[in-house]
């Protein structure tokens, strides 16, 4: 059953189209990842789906309710963790959670239990009676996540939930999200700039750029779509080599970058000698080669032409372990 459906959903700000006729659906119980560079339109999409912005055009439904005509019913079914801070800084951490719990009609018993459980999860129990304006950035973020998880919505929207958090907290939150998804069959709609996060959590991924969905598929299929292996080459003349390699039918995708070239191929390690031979015929010297399984990074770069790290320097460099089956590198 489709729990989220959109049809030609569009948002224009003063003539600038932030979200451009997107149509997709998310199934009940799915963890769906929405990836895209800065300004791609992810947050705008979430705001329309959560009834905070009116679409300029198109429509969408959440749990069968129309986001324009049945706004109250839509709100009954959703929970949101916003990208931007949305806390009352003049209240304490506990008061913020309590406010939320009451707005969502939780009984006193459930309220107390949940507040305690979630403050423990995000490790803020000892700070619960401190005014939020005295919290650090990371602590505020953790409090917001705790708040988003307080009630159990049918669909939970997480807009870059773990931005700016330390590795340990991210792990704990991932586990909790996974559990929530499994135990309560909560559908999760997540945006992130962390590929390891998307890899770990998401069943399916949509990549959006300039307000349009570039591709949408399961994580495995996306990786396969750019070839079983990715070869990265640095060489003396990228353009020349690219032109020559384009004539080879066994290379499924060629993507040139400023200082290197990536090729999508089958059984990459066996192709390296052939590539060297070809390079020699056009008088290009290869200075380094790398063969590996495609990662979500490669998928992202392929579909948006940009790497996440190029545009997001906040990403921690810990988690992006590449599942390299075979790795080889040498210099001439």
């Amino acid at each position: 059953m489709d729990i989220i459906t959109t049809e030609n959903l569009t948002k224009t700000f003063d003539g600038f189209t932030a979200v451009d006729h997107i149509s997709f659906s998310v199934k009940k119980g799915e963890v769906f990842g929405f990836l895209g560079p800065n300004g791609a339109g992810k947050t705008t999409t979430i705001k329309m789906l959560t009834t905070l912005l009116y679409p300029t055009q198109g429509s969408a439904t959440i749990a069968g309710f129309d986001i324009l005509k049945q706004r109250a019913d839509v709100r009954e079914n959703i929970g949101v963790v916003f990208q931007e801070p949305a806390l009352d800084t003049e209240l304490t951490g506990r008061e913020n959670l309590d406010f939320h719990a009451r707005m969502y009609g939780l009984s006193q018993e459930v309220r107390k239990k949940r507040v305690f459980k979630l403050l423990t999860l995000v490790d803020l129990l000892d700070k619960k009676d401190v005014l939020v304006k005295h919290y650090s950035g990371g602590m505020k973020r953790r409090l917001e996540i705790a708040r988003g998880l307080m009630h159990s919505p049918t669909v939970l929207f997480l807009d870059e939930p773990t931005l700016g958090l330390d590795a340990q907290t991210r792990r704990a939150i991932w586990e909790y999200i996974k559990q929530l998804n499994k135990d309560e069959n909560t559908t999760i709609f997540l945006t992130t700039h962390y590929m390891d996060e998307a890899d770990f959590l998401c069943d399916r991924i949509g990549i959006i750029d300039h307000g349009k969905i570039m591709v949408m598929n399961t994580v495995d299929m996306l990786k396969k779509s750019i070839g079983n292996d990715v070869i990265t080459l640095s060489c003396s003349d990228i353009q020349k080599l690219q032109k020559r390699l384009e004539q080879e039918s066994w290379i499924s995708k060629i993507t040139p970058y400023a200082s290197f070239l990536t090729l999508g191929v089958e059984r990459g390690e066996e192709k390296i000698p052939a590539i060297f031979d070809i390079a020699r015929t056009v008088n290009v010297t290869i200075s380094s080669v790398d063969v590996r399984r495609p990662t979500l990074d490669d998928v992202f770069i392929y579909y948006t032409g940009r790497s996440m790290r190029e545009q997001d320097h906040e990403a921690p460099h810990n988690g992006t372990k590449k599942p390299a089956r075979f790795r080889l590198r040498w210099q001439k």
Partner: protein
Amino acid sequence: MNQKNFQAIYVLWLRQMKRFLRAKSRVLTTIVQPLFFLFILGFGFNIAVFPGMQGSYINFLAPGIIAMAILFSSMFTGVSVLWDKQSGFLQEVLVAPVSRLSIVIGRTLGGATIALFQGFIIMIIAIALGVPITSTGGLLLTLVIMVLLSFTAVGFGLIIASKMHDFEGFQSIMSLILMPLLFLSSMFYPVTESLPGWLQMLSYCNPLFYMIDGIRGSLTGVNNILDPLVDLGIILTLCIIIMGLGTYFFNKSEA
């Protein structure tokens, strides 16, 4: 309206109370400022003789100061939606599964509680300074008008907040709209005696005029132009219209 909405109204009200009590400087200035007016103007003009004014000047002035305190405080509550918009907290409120109407009611009740608290303090001080009370019935009517004034001002603040995205416009609205309204409201002097005809007409178009005239009539029973019950009728109508518009605009606004 179901129980969830009542709980939402309660928690929105509670939030306002907590915020108000924690903002010590706001508590102080909102009480002290009208008192300044009351004392300085009250004693300063006490020797002046206004034609057609009965009793001392402070008796004339006090109802206006009470109204002004309630007006400023309530408008502030309405406009402070802008703060919530800028801090992002408004989003948290707007995605909650409660009706927009209960959000407006919660905010209005919160703002009204604070404003009335301030209004009472000034009223008590005024009475202590010798401002007479007509009757218990008159006092009750005064309270009703104070409540309606507060609701109207919150609603007006909500309308302003939904039309603005930052605070720059707020200053100009205060000086361009609010100040003339105050000076044409019969707060400081009897408009029937001193103003030329056309300005008097403007006074009668001024909602504040009926608020202050109503409080004056019901509380002190002198110097009012209309029967306080007539004022009440006009104020009630106005309150319903402004609150309706405030809810409508709040409902329409995006976060």
